[in-house]
């Protein structure tokens, strides 16, 4: 077999504040978008099950929080992103959205939190952070004095996910409970110097916690003492794919619109407001759609494999072996004619394997949905 040699200059990679902790735990480290990140700490599949069945924690400090301070924030964000920040009126409420270019193509996907008038916080992907900042900075020129955009590289981010994640977090940090126990999904609050959001990328309950970098290791160790096990980017990928959540750069990028990426629900076309990309989205009907696939034959679906359907060819954007379902699943971009229930063929090496088009998510809150 051919094994890609892992030979890179470690000094060139960026490190999160928890990097020494991962190394001490014996994690297998990989280059992820220029960051030296843990792929797994022994077994990716065990880490996956740990999150589905109990509680796991991820270092997601490579993602970037960006604060929008000043009274001009709401007006600016209303025109910047495809979802509508006017849906955010209750302090703490969060919104998932795409950031589009003029052609309606996806620059990034993000979450924006409304904490109070004068403070919105956005969290963007690691690999796209620099590109996002320069795009946003360009749009902000001329936005007036009432807007200050501050990247928060001083913050670390830990995601605690799983059916027991919140209970174990409160055990580790009892002082946060009063403030966070009534948070609904996609709501955030501040407690004990931390920004605590009931969000995640696994399809399980839990929190994403932002805190000063110097405090990250202490929180990590406290969570570990309460039985929260570390999980790497490998498990994060299989969990998010089972949960039917898109990965930027794989399931969508600057060549497709949100409508071609299963993200129509995140685009607000109904309000009269204008936003970057709106005119382009109004003009063309999508020719492709993102669907779920379950492999019927034996094998493993992978990104870029060709999919053959009665309405034409498509391509897998993300594919993996699903540890929860014990079979292979995928997201695929297919012609709009393909329908749920259709049997399609996927080219895997020299074979054409049978797969079925399904509605996704595949798994939510520990339960199989397909």
């Amino acid at each position: 077999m051919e094994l890609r040699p892992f030979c890179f200059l470690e000094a060139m990679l960026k490190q999160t504040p928890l990097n020494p902790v991962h190394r001490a735990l014996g994690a297998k480290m990989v280059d992820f978008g220029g960051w030296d990140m843990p792929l797994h700490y022994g077994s990716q599949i065990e880490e996956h099950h740990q999150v589905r069945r109990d509680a796991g924690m991820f270092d997601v400090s490579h993602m970037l929080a960006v604060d929008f301070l000043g009274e001009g924030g709401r007006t600016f964000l209303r025109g910047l992103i495809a979802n509508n920040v006017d849906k955010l009126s209750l302090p703490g409420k969060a919104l998932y959205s795409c950031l589009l270019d003029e052609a309606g193509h996806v620059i990034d996907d993000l979450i924006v939190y409304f904490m109070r008038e004068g403070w919105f916080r956005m969290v963007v992907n690691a690999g796209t952070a620099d590109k996002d900042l320069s795009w946003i900075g360009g749009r902000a020129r001329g936005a007036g004095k009432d807007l200050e955009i501050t990247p928060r590289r001083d913050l670390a981010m830990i995601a605690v996910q799983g059916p027991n994640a919140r209970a174990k977090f409160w055990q580790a940090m009892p002082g946060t409970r009063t403030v966070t126990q009534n948070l609904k999904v996609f709501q955030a609050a501040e407690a004990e110097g931390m920004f605590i959001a009931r969000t995640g990328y696994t399809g399980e309950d839990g929190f994403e916690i932002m805190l000063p970098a110097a405090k990250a290791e202490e929180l990590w160790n406290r969570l570990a003492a309460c039985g929260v096990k570390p999980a790497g980017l490998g498990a994060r990928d299989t969990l998010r794919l089972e949960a039917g959540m898109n990965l930027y750069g794989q399931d969508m990028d600057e060549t497709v619109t949100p409508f071609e990426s299963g993200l129509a629900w995140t685009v607000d076309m109904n309000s009269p407001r204008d936003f970057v990309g709106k005119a382009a989205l109004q003009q063309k009907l999508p020719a492709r759609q993102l669907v779920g696939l379950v492999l019927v034959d034996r094998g493993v679906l992978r990104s870029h494999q060709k999919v053959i359907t009665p309405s034409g060819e498509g391509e897998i954007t993300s594919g993996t072996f699903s540890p929860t379902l014990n079979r292979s699943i995928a997201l695929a971009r297919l012609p709009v004619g393909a329908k749920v229930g259709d049997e399609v063929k996927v080219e895997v090496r020299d074979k054409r394997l049978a797969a079925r088009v399904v509605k996704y998510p595949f798994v939510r809150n520990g339960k199989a949905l397909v």
Partner: protein
Amino acid sequence: MSIPAELKYTKTHEWARLEGDGLVSVGITHHAQELLGDMVFVENPQVGRKLGANEECAVVESVKAASDVYAPVAGEVVAVNGELEGAPQKINEDPYGAWMFRLKPANPADLQGLLTAAQYQEQVESEEH
């Protein structure tokens, strides 16, 4: 690192064991399974297929990626380990016990041309730097 002295190895991370009946068992090394991670799928060659040395003949897939497995020596496939189909993780748990297929070698002397444990170890170490 686990590299049993009694086995032969390839540059492409397969191991080969000459059995008492003259057949050659083939699997992938501890180093290979460690780099690939949790195994989820194994596709073995058809019994009866005649393989040339270094011919692509099987596939192992981990959660991370698919990798081709090559025949260490020329020969005919006389058996495949069907147990791995339902339990590919055995390759992670016991890489030198989890043989994938057995060959009747075209020329048993070909095994002498493979890497020794010491040579394979040297190669693995050179790849890591």
